[in-house]
């Protein structure tokens, strides 16, 4: 059977370089299989995160031939074999070792988001047609590829003032939950910096769950922020009726 050459980043944030490995190709093989082959046969200390190997846990994100991908869903036979296949860690996060990065920033952002708070005295009746759009957001497997590819994070390093597409998706799921009773508009504007997003749709393109992040989550959330904070009519209404609902 044919061989493939993998060029894998080895090292830490401080020091590292790509190293080439020859891996025999089996039918249907994915890049994660090739990385496992290297671990088991060539270099047992190659650091890779993975869990389910079926596209459901979002652990094995990396940049394959320059594209952010889940390595468990990237078929070797879909990649050109006339040159080495490059596998690098996600660029937007500090490298711990090899392909493993420090993604703890994401967990810190998540903590800022107020949880689901049901309307008082709800009867818990919900209808599928009201839930379809929310269930799309709930498909997110937290692979953080969208966070990795977003230029606000990747090129402008605005981790302190920006939440990133993953957390706009999470906020959208809460805001559009049929029974939720909290507004997160102020959070979106002030702490998650949704205004930084200029809807280039890079996040949507890399989402392995095919969530339409920009169209279905970010744009409607931007509209909410505009309605609540910048719309002169709404401003007047608020002045008369008091502050917007608690956040």
């Amino acid at each position, binding site marked *: 059977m044919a061989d493939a050459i993998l060029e894998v980043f080895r090292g830490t944030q401080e020091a590292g370089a790509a190293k080439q490995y020859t891996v025999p190709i089996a039918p*249907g093989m994915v890049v994660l299989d090739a990385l496992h082959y290297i671990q088991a046969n060539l270099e047992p200390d190659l650091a890779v995160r993975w869990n389910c*190997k079926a*596209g459901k846990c979002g*652990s094995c994100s990396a940049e394959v031939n320059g594209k952010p991908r889940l390595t468990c869903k990237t*078929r070797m036979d879909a990649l050109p074999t006339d040159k080495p296949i490059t596998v690098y860690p996600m660029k937007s996060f500090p490298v711990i070792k090899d392909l493993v990065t420090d993604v703890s920033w994401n967990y810190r952002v998540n903590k800022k988001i107020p*949880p689901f708070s049901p309307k008082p005295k709800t009867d818990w*009746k*919900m209808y599928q047609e009201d839930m379809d759009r929310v269930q799309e957001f709930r498909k997110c497997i*937290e692979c953080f590829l969208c966070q990795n590819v977003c230029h606000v994070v990747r090129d402008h390093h605005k981790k302190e003032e920006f939440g990133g597409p993953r957390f706009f998706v999470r906020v959208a799921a*809460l805001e559009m939950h049929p029974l939720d009773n909290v507004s997160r508009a102020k959070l979106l504007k002030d702490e998650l910096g949704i205004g930084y997003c200029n809807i280039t749709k890079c996040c949507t393109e890399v989402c392995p769950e095919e969530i339409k992040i920009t169209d279905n989550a970010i744009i409607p959330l931007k509209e909410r922020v505009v309605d609540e904070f910048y719309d002169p009519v709404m401003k007047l209404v608020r002045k008369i009726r008091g502050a917007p609902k608690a956040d």
Partner: protein
Amino acid sequence: MTNQTKYETHEHDVLIIGAGGAGLRAAIEGLAAGARVAVVSKSLLGKAHTVMAEGGIAAAMANVDKADSWRTHFRDTMRGGKLLNNWRMAQLHAQEAPERVRELEQWGALFDRTSDGDILQRAFGGHTFKRLCHVGDRTGLEMIRTLQDRGVQMGFDVFMECTIIRLLTDGKRVVGAFGYWREQGRFVVLKAKAVVMATGGIGKAWRVTSNSWEYTGDGMALAYDAGAELLDMEFVQFHPTGMVWPPGVQGILVTEAVRGEGGILRNKEGQRFMEKYDPNRMELSTRDVVARSIYTEVREGRGSEHGGAYLDISHKPAEYVKQKLPSMYHQFKELADVDITKGPMEVGPTCHYMMGGIRVEAETAASSLPGLFAAGEAAAGLHGANRLGGNSLSDLLVFGRRAGLGAAAYADKAPAASINDGQIAEAERDMLAPFDRGEGENPYSVHRDLQETMQNLVGIFRVEEDMNKAMGELEKLKARAARGRVEGSRLFNPGWHLSRDLKSMLTVSEAVTRSAMARKESRGAHSRIDFPKLDEQVWGRQHNLITRDGDRMKLQQIPVDAIPGELNELLAEDK
């Protein structure tokens, strides 16, 4: 003199090992009871194996089939488990599951709905009624995300990518754990008044498995090492439908929901073979029966092209399939070049779940060791000889909650304890030894041989001769593992991590093999070629129990608890 100056040390009331459904649910309950709670996980938060659960949570909510009740759920669970279940656990589980599901909804989970706006329920193998609350075929993801968000908001401490290598004991009592950060390889002491083991199963000891790298039996082995009892270890569930082709995806789960939604199994001759094995329940027979049926078809030469069976849902409208089974649709399309709306999938048995585990008390999830609790797949009892699909997620919720309550109550009254530095020093020495060996074997090759041994000799069908051979192989593998060597540094080193996980796998594999050899009958997931029948007189009345006796593994039998009269009458009822 004390190690606590040498090591990073944390102290909590309740320490939970494992951050899947059971661990997170235990943490939430512990916090609600006022305890200071920490959760340790080998992976990042939210990646535990619960995320892989697809089909649904079994709970007799009677939203779709109004006739359903906890009584029927109890009966289905007991019958599925061939009456080896802990009857009290089966009762509590059936009674409490609906409330646990409603609770998830109140914390933000969004289940698929009926036209009346209630939680939709689907059919599953061995369940009399449509009982599985679900979200398409990604129910586990919904559940873990809901629990994770709830726990984070309530304020537990999370120690991610941390592996526990030893339970610390003061006399017989468990008073904490010792582990290492996978990232940097540094050691950490976690003192606690009570510990909950929620570490899942042991699938990685088999070659073909639906389980992730984390499933190395750590919790069972740690508990065993510390002196706890392991129960019913011979009962390993092979899920009937894993992917069989291409080779790299072999074993990946194909949800039972495919059959729940009407999927049909055929052999290469086009015959719907379940007609032969279970004409009444057909594809929705229990997992042990369907797995054996597929295996038998393949062995007798009627298998599919790559040695499985054909599972077909393409008679349903394509849009329906994509809506109800979206991740199956993508999984086959992307990994196997198969469009399941147009043609059949190839499927075969895959090692999936451990019914046996740490022996616990039904009400509190307490193990036989003071201060140690267990829930979920790491614990034994609820599922008996065979688990029904959907009963795992409900198990995690019901007994995760009870373990959290039990541990918090214990911690509240627990007297002061001291940490034994000798135990820590020993664990550290063992853990670092593979770096010091000039020569020795790569842990990956030992792991590969362990998987072959368990796959070929302690698989779906078992026979004395094979298992004798397996015992010999396990001895050799233990010796090889003890001489293992790892390369590189302590910084995120998977080879080093595996060298420790391998020890747990070997301990648990031995417990499985010993128990399987002892049980000279076929019951549920345990099928003996040399003893093909149920033996109600002897083995219907006893469990296998494993304990540590010095360096030796001790096997004994204990009686099955008698089922009280009114519950026994439920079991006798028809339907």
